[in-house]
């Protein structure tokens, strides 16, 4: 990657003036205190102050802002709601943040053809709310869906609890309009789902904002299922819950979601605004959601009940109605934030292992946490093998922070060893960039670099993310630098 676009300390006043000219003064932030909040996203460990923040409203404004950044030799970083967990929106080296939070129009809803065209700043949950009356919804449902934007979802290829049945963002994006790093605008893909040539949409989704800035997204909509059943399978221990997951997958049933919440998480959630009456003495709760035709619910519930008996389930609790189901899901989705109750900081890990390996991997992960004397909790998408070990800590304690990072690295090494990967839905960003060597050989990373360079040859768009800058990429994580003060 070229390092041509390393940014000067303070941006040129002319750059700011030109950017203000595009979006208006109110929407171009450049005073240090205004930039403060843009130093990081949901990953707070490694914050960097941008030179400026631009808040465009239209695709044209994005393209103009990109052109101006180029002209001044200034790198830029796209940002949505800043809920990402891998530092994808962190402006390294004072890059200009191009924040799409004001691009929040739903441009078109075509119920007959089941698609919608949205601006990137549309909040994920708002789209589903806006189309509910049509009997449709937008399927990817990351836990932050109340706040995260669809543009951000496209960048990260966000998943969510219902990935098991419905797939991730990449399975639901038909076409995008993108401002390329050279400020030109292209349309990738087609609303028909097929575009002659390479699958550029497939390449762009999950590219973490390093290939360009998505300014318009055509998504597929899905019919709201006729029936939904949500069951809590309450266990004394986590491995038993994982074994049930394996049994269900083996049985040929495809539930909409299979989520495991462990005891520590249950207790944190039950102490929060998201409390849902989960039993705080249980070792683990497996949330099973079935959806589809009403006539098949009873049969599946019964089969799952039998499988659960076989794993020694303590209790099966079926959600009585939509309200109770919503309560369960609020509890599950609020779990991450609820950890804020355990300690000032939280490191949400994200790794995937083969589903059949879940019980042994979890045991080993807990052992790693114990070995480092850390408070560890688990809440994860068991049906996908997607683990989220959460470590609660206080980053003002440098020793604890060092242990958090060391444990995190060990967990990733463990996951890779059993055939897993570094991230299932949070992305690589800055967080795992320098761990990529655990999973990939230099030639593999080089192939990724080829794709990036085809879109972003001079590295002006979101530099320093996803691909390690050097080939010696097994160095320790940059966050190990110790307590990182908020910037300024």
């Amino acid at each position, binding site marked *: 990657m070229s390092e041509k676009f390393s940014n000067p300390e303070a941006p040129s006043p002319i750059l700011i003036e030109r950017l203000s000219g595009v979006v208006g003064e109110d929407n171009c932030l450049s005073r240090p205190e205004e930039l403060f909040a843009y130093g990081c996203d949901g990953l707070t460990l490694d914050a960097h102050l941008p030179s400026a923040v631009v808040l465009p409203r239209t695709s044209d404004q994005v393209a103009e802002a990109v052109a101006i950044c180029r002209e001044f030799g200034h790198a830029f970083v796209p940002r949505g709601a800043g809920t990402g967990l891998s530092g994808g929106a962190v402006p390294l080296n004072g890059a200009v943040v191009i924040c799409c939070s004001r691009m929040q129009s739903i441009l078109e809803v075509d119920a007959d053809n089941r698609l919608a065209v949205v601006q990137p700043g549309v909040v994920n949950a708002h789209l589903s709310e806006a189309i509910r009356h049509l009997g449709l919804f937008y399927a990817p449902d990351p836990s932050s869906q109340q706040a995260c934007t669809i543009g951000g979802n496209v960048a990260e290829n966000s998943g969510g609890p219902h*990935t098991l049945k419905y797939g*991730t963002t990449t399975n639901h994006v038909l076409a995008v309009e993108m401002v390329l790093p050279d400020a030109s605008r292209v*349309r*990738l893909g087609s609303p028909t789902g097929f575009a002659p040539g390479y699958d550029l949409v497939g390449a762009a989704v999950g590219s973490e904002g390093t290939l360009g800035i998505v300014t318009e997204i055509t998504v597929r909509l899905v019919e709201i299922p*006729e029936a939904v059943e949500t069951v809590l399978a309450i266990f004394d221990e986590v491995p038993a819950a994982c074994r049930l997951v394996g049994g269900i997958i083996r049985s040929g049933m495809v539930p909409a979601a299979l989520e495991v919440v462990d005891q520590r998480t249950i207790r944190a959630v039950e102490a929060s605004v998201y409390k849902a009456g989960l039993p705080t003495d249980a070792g683990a709760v497996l949330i099973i959601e079935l959806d589809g035709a009403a006539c098949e619910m009873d049969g599946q519930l019964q089969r799952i009940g039998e499988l659960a008996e076989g794993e020694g389930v303590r209790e099966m609790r079926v959600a009585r109605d939509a309200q109770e189901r919503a309560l369960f899901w609020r509890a599950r989705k609020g779990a991450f934030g609820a950890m804020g109750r355990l300690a000032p900081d939280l490191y949400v890990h994200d790794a995937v292992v083969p589903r059949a390996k879940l019980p042994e991997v979890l045991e080993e992960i807990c052992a790693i946490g114990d070995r480092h004397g850390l408070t560890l909790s688990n809440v994860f998408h068991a049906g996908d093998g997607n683990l989220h070990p959460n470590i609660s800590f206080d980053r003002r304690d440098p020793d604890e922070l060092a242990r958090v990072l060391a444990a995190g690295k060990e967990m990733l090494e463990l996951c890779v060893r059993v055939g897993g990967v570094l991230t299932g839905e949070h992305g*690589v960003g800055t967080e795992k960039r320098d761990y990529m060597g655990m999973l990939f050989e230099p030639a593999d990373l080089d192939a990724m670099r080829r*794709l990036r360079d085809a879109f972003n040859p001079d590295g002006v768009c979101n530099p320093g993310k996803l691909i390690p800058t050097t080939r010696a990429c097994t160095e320790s994580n940059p966050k190990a630098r110790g307590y990182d003060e908020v910037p300024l």
Partner: protein
Amino acid sequence: MSAEVGEQATLDALEAAAEGSVCLLDPPERVAGSRLRARVEPAYGEALAGCLDVLSRHGESVLVMGSGTRMHWGNPARGVSVALSSRRLNGITEFDPADGVIQVRAGTPLSEVSRRVESEGWLLPLDPSGAGGTVGGALATASCGPRQRGFGPVRDAVLGIDTVLASGERTRCGARVVKNVTGYDLAKLYVGSLGTLAVIEKAWLRLKPIPACVHQVERSFDAVEDAFAQALAASRRSSARAVGLVAEPPSVPGAHPGPWRLLAEFAGEEPTVRADTEWLVPGAAPGVEGEGVVEELRARQAACSEAGLHARIHLLPGALAGVARRLRERGAHLVVYPEPAVVHARFEPEAGDPGPDGCDGVLGLLEEIRGAGAAEIFIESLPAAASRERDVFAGAGCLELMRAIKGRFDPDGILNPGRFAGGI
């Protein structure tokens, strides 16, 4: 780059890199517009890498292929006299029945994979048009048959791909897990790239459970509106796995056309399959077991003769009926999938004579359909006489970006040169 014939030195070096894998073709074989002098068939990954290393060092272009089932796809290759086939690169390398994932070498026949996984209660969700074929071919062409409704597109089944780049470097993307965002999703790029970016060595695939119950039904409609409304509704039933409409052109232009036949396969939990079958054809439940409906759709979809023209038109569901009617009136044999909305239109010489002139007429009509908006067209086969000067990737956008990608992955352009969109 040798335009005529692979030089002996190249062939020797290939033989050295992959012992026993070079097969000389005398007389030369005509495939994809090329006269092939030799076919290289490496039997393991390292040999494949060695072959590409030799080819790139010698600047020798190569026709990348699997078992050759769909070599009529794509534009004719330019300046190629050596084929690189993955046919002998076969076998299942890993199968995890507990997790429902399998790793397979590119040259493994789909039928072999299906047999293996079905013995453990799983299904290989690849359903390319036509019979036979290899896993590598199904991925490179991204070909979808009647069961796309149930299986999803090819890219959904692919978890990771090991490839060899034009330079001979072996690379890996993705993994065996079912959810993964570690790095760029290069597998998406390789799927459907017709072997122009890299050669697939092996792939991790995600399997689907064998459904508890499968039933097939058939219905006929005279009115086009009824047929399409019903087909779309059937396709949106929760257990729909394959739904297609088939129609023949009028026997004489202007004559009353025959009926639209709706063929459907429902698969899943028994009560739903029963309900959906009953919904489509009251009194028909439980329907017919077996493969007949899907076999018929698949066969019709791939029935184009050498002299015929086969266009695949991707639309929005709402535009299907109008487009299908126009094509049928113009003499097309049709297979129509309502969602994702795809029309397979086949023009044969006996009706409306597609020969060079007839071809122009049909292509003009297709161009009109594409111009009317939200339609994408791929010409699956074109009579040889017409194929030289046309791009079968009609109107592909973003060519500059695609060329940039090609340039990064295959800077000397040795992999399937000319086969892809815009002469890539």
